[in-house]
C-alpha cells in the first residue's frame, strides 16, 4: 500500500511562509543592526587625526597654518627658517591631502638677509579638510 500523497499546494504554501519569515528576519535584523550602529556612533569625530610633514636641509619649514573657508582649505601660510646671510630665490611647496584627493602648489620668492620669512600660498581650488588631513611642506633655495 502506498501512502496517500499530500496536495502540492500545501508544500508550496509552506515554502512561501518560510520564505516570508526568513525575509522578515533579515529585514528586522538589518534594522536592529542599523539602530545599534547609530547608538554606537553617538560620538562622531571628524578630523581627529592630522599629519604635518616638514622638510629638511639648510632651509626648513618651521610653521604652517591652514587657511579655511568653512570646512574647505583654501591655502597655507608657511614660515621658514634659513641662514641669515643666504640671500636669493626660494621655492616653497605645499601639498595638502584629505585622503581622497590632494592639491599642491609652489611659489618662488626672493629673500634678502634674515633668519626667517613667511609666505602665503593659495591653492587653485579649495579642498575639503576631512576625512584624513595631511600637509606636506618644503622649502629650498634655488
Amino acid at each position: 500500500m502506498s501512502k496517500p500523497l499530500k496536495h502540492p499546494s500545501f508544500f508550496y504554501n509552506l515554502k512561501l511562509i518560510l520564505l516570508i519569515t526568513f525575509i522578515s528576519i533579515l529585514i528586522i535584523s538589518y534594522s536592529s543592526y542599523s539602530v545599534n550602529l547609530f547608538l554606537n556612533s553617538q560620538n562622531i569625530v571628524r578630523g581627529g587625526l592630522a599629519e604635518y610633514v616638514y622638510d629638511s636641509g639648510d632651509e626648513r619649514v618651521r610653521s604652517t597654518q591652514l587657511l579655511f573657508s568653512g570646512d574647505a582649505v583654501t591655502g597655507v601660510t608657511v614660515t621658514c627658517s634659513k641662514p641669515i646671510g643666504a640671500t636669493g630665490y626660494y621655492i616653497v611647496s605645499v601639498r595638502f591631502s584629505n585622503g581622497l584627493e590632494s592639491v599642491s602648489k609652489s611659489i618662488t620668492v626672493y629673500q634678502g638677509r634674515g633668519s626667517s620669512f613667511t609666505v602665503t600660498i593659495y591653492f587653485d581650488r579649495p579642498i575639503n579638510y576631512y576625512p584624513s588631513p595631511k600637509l606636506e611642506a618644503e622649502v629650498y633655495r634655488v
Partner: protein
Amino acid sequence: MRKKTLIITLMLLTTLLSVYVISVSLSTDVKKIAGGSVEVKKYNIKISRINDRVWGNFLLIVDVDIVVDVSGNYNIKLTVWNDGDSRTISQTLYLNVGTNRVSFIVYLREGDVGFSHSVEVSPA
C-alpha cells in the same frame, strides 16, 4: 511524515522566537533614542596650525592650534619624529569652541630629515 512536521514546527518556533527577541531589542533601542537618554554628538576637529619652536639644533616646543565646535575635555596626543628619534606627548585639556592653542614641550634633536608631526584629538 511526523518527523518532517516536527522539524518544520521547530523551525517555525525558532524563527518566531528570533523575531521576538530581535523586535524587543530593536524596540529598546528606539525607546532609548525617543526617550532622549542617548545624546548624539558630532565633533568636527581641525588642526589648523603647527609651529615648531627651535633653539639651536633642538626642537623645544610645538604649538598646535586646534579648532573645535563642541567645548569640553579632549585628549590630545602629539607625536613628533625625524630620522633618528621620536617623542609622543599626551594631554587632556578643556577646549573651548573656536581656536585653542596648545603647547607641547618636546626636546628633540634635529636630524637630516625634517620633523613630521601627527596630532590626534579625541573627546575625553
